[in-house]
């Protein structure tokens, strides 16, 4: 069976993980600066006060003047989500994370280990921890598992019998379907409010009226009995298979600045220092980098994070610097620390040798060997790079930083 684990409002919960008292007050995730002022997830107290997720900020504040707006913290969300995934993986679950707060796993590998589907789900919920209010669902298809997890109470596991998926989905609201709001409203106007009502319509009529999205939703609703096995939509999404993520690489480096830095030149130099350190990590084992994430802790409490998948895996400092450097221009505020994570490494480490070695390669090799000797002799922290951050500053100690190269 396919299982789904859902943590509603994960971004808000992650932001308030270290401030649990705020979870009991009317609070909502603030809109991103520069985007439409719509609220993110809200707490139960906020919902009781009449505030709904997706509500306009002005309307929400008029409805509940004591509403606490929680700033989005992308880095914290990513860190907390990674910890949740690691805890599940430590318990033997091969998970496919979809987005923070939602993941799937196949129960086949763990059913015998834990004595059935329900005990496995209970184990998964226990691994996640009770503070997250996670719900779990299992069914023969991903969508049905997601629906089961969505209706499960916090800490509850709902298992849908293989033969009863359609009956299970029929009374559920259409809001669970992956449909655009406009399409959902269109269906609502037509009197279609439940998944079962959508599944009862002729497939061709749904496709004609709502297009491919509607046809897909109709299919997910269970209208095609038995026809969903191995079904792929245009995006290649398979409703009956789970692709567990490859083992995570634990390669990350972070550089803290003595004070907030906004200068792009300084940030580029810091990025170079981070690249030097992360590429020298022995855990990389010469493998090239496929996917990398750049993150920053912003002044004033927020965070920023961008991931990048390289068209061709690379272990070259220059290539990575050229790929990641422009991202630094997107930073919305001065940063207190800059981080670099290697998310996916290529499997192979073979590489075509150059006919003529690049100029300076031999010197670079000798220099690296010399630095290794110094480190071995003098210990950790003995080798540092001087990174000029503000050579024009009138205050001498602000002109350059010493960045450890261990």
């Amino acid at each position, binding site marked *: 069976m396919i299982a789904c684990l859902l943590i509603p409002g994960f971004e808000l919960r992650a932001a308030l993980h270290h401030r649990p008292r705020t979870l009991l007050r009317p609070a909502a995730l603030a809109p991103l600066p520069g985007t439409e002022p719509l609220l993110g997830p809200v707490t139960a107290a906020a919902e009781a006060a009449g505030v709904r997720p997706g509500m306009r900020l002005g309307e929400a504040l008029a409805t509940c003047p004591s509403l606490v707006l929680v700033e989005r913290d992308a880095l914290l969300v990513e*860190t907390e989500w*990674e910890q949740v995934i690691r805890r599940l993986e430590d318990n033997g679950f091969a998970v496919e994370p979809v987005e923070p707060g939602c993941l799937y796993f196949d129960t086949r590998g763990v059913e015998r280990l834990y004595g059935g589907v329900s005990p496995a789900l209970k184990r998964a919920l226990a691994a996640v921890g009770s503070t997250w209010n996670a719900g779990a669902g299992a069914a023969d298809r991903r969508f049905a598992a997601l629906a089961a997890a969505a209706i499960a109470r916090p800490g509850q596991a709902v298992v849908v019998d293989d033969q009863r998926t359609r009956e299970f989905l029929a009374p559920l609201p259409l809001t669970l379907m992956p449909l655009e709001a406009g399409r959902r409203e269109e269906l609502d106007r037509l009197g279609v409010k439940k998944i079962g009502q959508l599944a009862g319509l002729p497939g061709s009529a749904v496709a004609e009226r709502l297009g491919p999205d509607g046809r897909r939703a109709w299919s997910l609703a269970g209208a095609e009995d038995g026809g969903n096995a191995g079904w792929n939509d245009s995006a290649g999404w398979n409703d009956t298979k789970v692709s567990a993520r490859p083992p*995570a690489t*634990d390669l*990350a*480096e*972070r*550089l*803290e*600045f*003595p004070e907030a830095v906004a200068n792009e030149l300084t940030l580029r130099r*810091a990025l170079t220092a981070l690249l030097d*350190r992360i590429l020298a990590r022995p855990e990389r084992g010469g493998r090239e980098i496929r996917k990398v994430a750049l993150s920053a802790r912003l002044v004033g409490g927020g965070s920023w994070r961008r991931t990048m998948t390289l068209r061709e895996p690379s272990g070259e400092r220059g290539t990575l610097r050229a790929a990641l450097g422009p991202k630094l221009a997107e930073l919305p505020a001065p940063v207190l620390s800059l*981080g670099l*994570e290697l998310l996916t490494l290529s499997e192979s480490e073979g590489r075509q040798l150059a006919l003529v070695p690049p100029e300076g390669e031999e010197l670079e090799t000798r220099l690296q060997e010399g630095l290794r000797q110094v480190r071995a002799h003098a210990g950790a922290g003995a080798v*540092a790079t*001087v*990174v000029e951050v503000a050579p024009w500053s*009138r*205050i*001498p*100690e*602000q*002109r*350059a*930083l*010493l*960045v*450890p190269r*261990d």
Partner: protein
Amino acid sequence: MSARLNAAARLNEPRPALVAEGFDGSPQRVNRQGVEVVREEWRVLDRWWTEEPVNRRYFEVVLESGQNVVVFRDDERGCWFSQRGA
């Protein structure tokens, strides 16, 4: 993901200095050594718009031993420091 955290340190951080000053506020003795000559003097006023303003009176001096030293009086904190790279 547990990132290896490395804090960057500032280069040329000021170090506390033992300075005896004259009537005009210029250094007479630095770290128990007499001052032979004051080569240069300048003032740095910066970051006054922040909560950590910088208000320093710098002196480049030559000590009895021939050593060239840069010291400054931090007028915000009322104490003396020596500094390289100034």
